[in-house]
């Protein structure tokens, strides 16, 4: 039976909302598992066929499902502390969130990478190896297995390889000018400029500033305006997703749109659930009728301000980083 092979997991796992990936060590091969929630795809690389592995430092602002879980727990704790009017806990939770976000930004920008495995017929990315420390552990575990089968290259191996290709022969990136229709969605050849993307950034900033203003100058029709602005952000995010699928925007921009959709959905859902549950419990304990206040004070506004402005700033970073990568680098001396 096929199930008889026992695999050992190698370091690294990509945990996405829809896609996941991991690499497993078999007796004579490497198994790349790509998971699409309810289906898995497998690709095998025999140790004797692996020609090389390359790791390139590259920014990777991936939000894993584990990080998402932490964000949900944080939101639940924050809304609970707001409803119970415990400002010390709320402040500590705010501080904790700031520290976590700074750590995530630093790790994503400075300690991330792309790992690719080369055989004579394939050059595949290993999505599960996207942090540099994971890449080092991954190679420490894999290198002896390949060396046991193939031996090791010694001496002036660069001369020995000469003009042989590592990986399959394909058109070089600067030789292949793809038409827009052939381009992969999210490719770096797509434009960074788009009216829908600017619209998304504008709605994020306006929404963030509106929530900030509403903290200090509450208006009677303020919550309605907030909901309308959230609706505009949703529309803008959907437009960005449509443009992405038309191959006109980049992956980072698509991810920002998804993050905006998830953040708005999450804030509304968690707020409704937690505030409703705690207020209901309080009413039952005190045997009083309690009026539900889903906006529950300035801290809710601060959370929404923080999320919207953070997403807006991330959008600006994507815009400027995208402009920078369009310019070719000079050859180092």
């Amino acid at each position, binding site marked *: *039976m*096929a*199930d*008889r*092979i026992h*695999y050992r997991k190698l370091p690294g796992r990509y945990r996405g909302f829809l896609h996941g990936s*991991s690499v497993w060590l078999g007796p004579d091969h490497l*198994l790349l*598992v790509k*998971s699409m*929630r*309810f*289906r*898995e*795809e*497998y*690709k*095998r690389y025999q140790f*004797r*066929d*692996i*020609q*090389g*592995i*390359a*790791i*390139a*430092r*590259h920014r990777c602002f991936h939000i894993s499902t584990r990080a998402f879980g932490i964000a949900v727990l944080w939101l639940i704790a924050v809304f609970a502390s707001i409803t119970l009017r415990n400002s010390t806990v709320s402040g500590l939770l705010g501080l904790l969130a700031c520290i976590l976000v700074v750590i995530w930004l630093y790790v994503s920008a400075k300690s991330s990478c*792309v*790992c*690719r495995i*080369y055989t*004579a017929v394939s*050059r595949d*990315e290993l999505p599960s190896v996207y942090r540099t420390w994971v890449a080092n552990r991954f*190679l420490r575990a894999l*290198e002896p297995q*390949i*060396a046991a089968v*193939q031996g*090791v*290259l010694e001496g*002036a*191996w*660069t001369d020995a*390889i000469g*003009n*042989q290709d*590592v*990986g399959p022969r*394909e058109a*070089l*990136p*600067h030789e292949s000018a793809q038409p827009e229709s052939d381009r992969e969605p999210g490719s770096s050849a797509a434009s960074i400029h788009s009216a829908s993307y600017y619209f998304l950034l504008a709605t994020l900033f306006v929404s963030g500033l509106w929530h900030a203003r509403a903290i200090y100058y509450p208006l009677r029709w303020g919550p309605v305006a907030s909901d309308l602005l959230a609706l505009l952000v949703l529309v803008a995010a959907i437009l960005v997703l449509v443009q992405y699928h038309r191959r006109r925007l980049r992956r980072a921009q698509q991810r920002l749109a998804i993050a905006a959709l998830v953040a708005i959905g999450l804030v509304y*859902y968690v707020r409704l659930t937690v505030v409703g549950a705690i207020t209901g419990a309080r009413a039952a304990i005190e045997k009083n009728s309690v009026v539900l206040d889903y906006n529950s004070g300035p801290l809710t506004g601060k959370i929404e301000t923080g999320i919207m402005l953070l997403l807006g700033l991330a959008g600006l970073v994507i815009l400027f980083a995208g402009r920078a*990568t369009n310019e*070719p*680098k000079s050859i*180092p001396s």
Partner: protein
Amino acid sequence: MPIPCALCSMPLPDRALANDDLAICSLCGAENQVWVFPAALRQAAPVHLEAALDGEAACFDHPGKRAVAACRHCGRFVCQLCSVEFGAEIWCPSCVTARAGSAAGANLETTRTLHDSIALSVPLLSLVIWPLTVITGPGAVVYSIVKWRAPLSLVRRNRWRFVAAILIGLAEVAGWLLLIVYALTRSRAGGG
């Protein structure tokens, strides 16, 4: 030497690779660290299909070509093009495709449906719109029992997701029964 950049596939400069330094891609500027193995030196042997002469064994699928081996499983003669290396053995393409004999254990599957993940996700996701649990709770229990023996992921070794799906499904069914009993009791008390 054409070792490609992991990010953009542009060949990396030789000198840095020879010195085991970080190789900086001249196109995208990414810092690459490269590990090269002896397989990179191995030249792929060109396939020469020789014509079978009179009296020589010919390939089953290409009668005009000389056979170079016999399939380990079915014994058919195969030419160099048709011979599939299977560990230390040679197989014909039909036996490999049919996963006959010991090829059945060759693990050629490229995809599997994860029934245990489906069974667990349905009752959990339906909690977001909780009235749906009236269908998804019992549905998850039935689905888990029906698919209990279905093959799992190649790399997962146990069925805890099925067990969790059954428990959550049963909890949702119990919740609905309690709600119905409570509603009936209230309505009777109100009527009396």
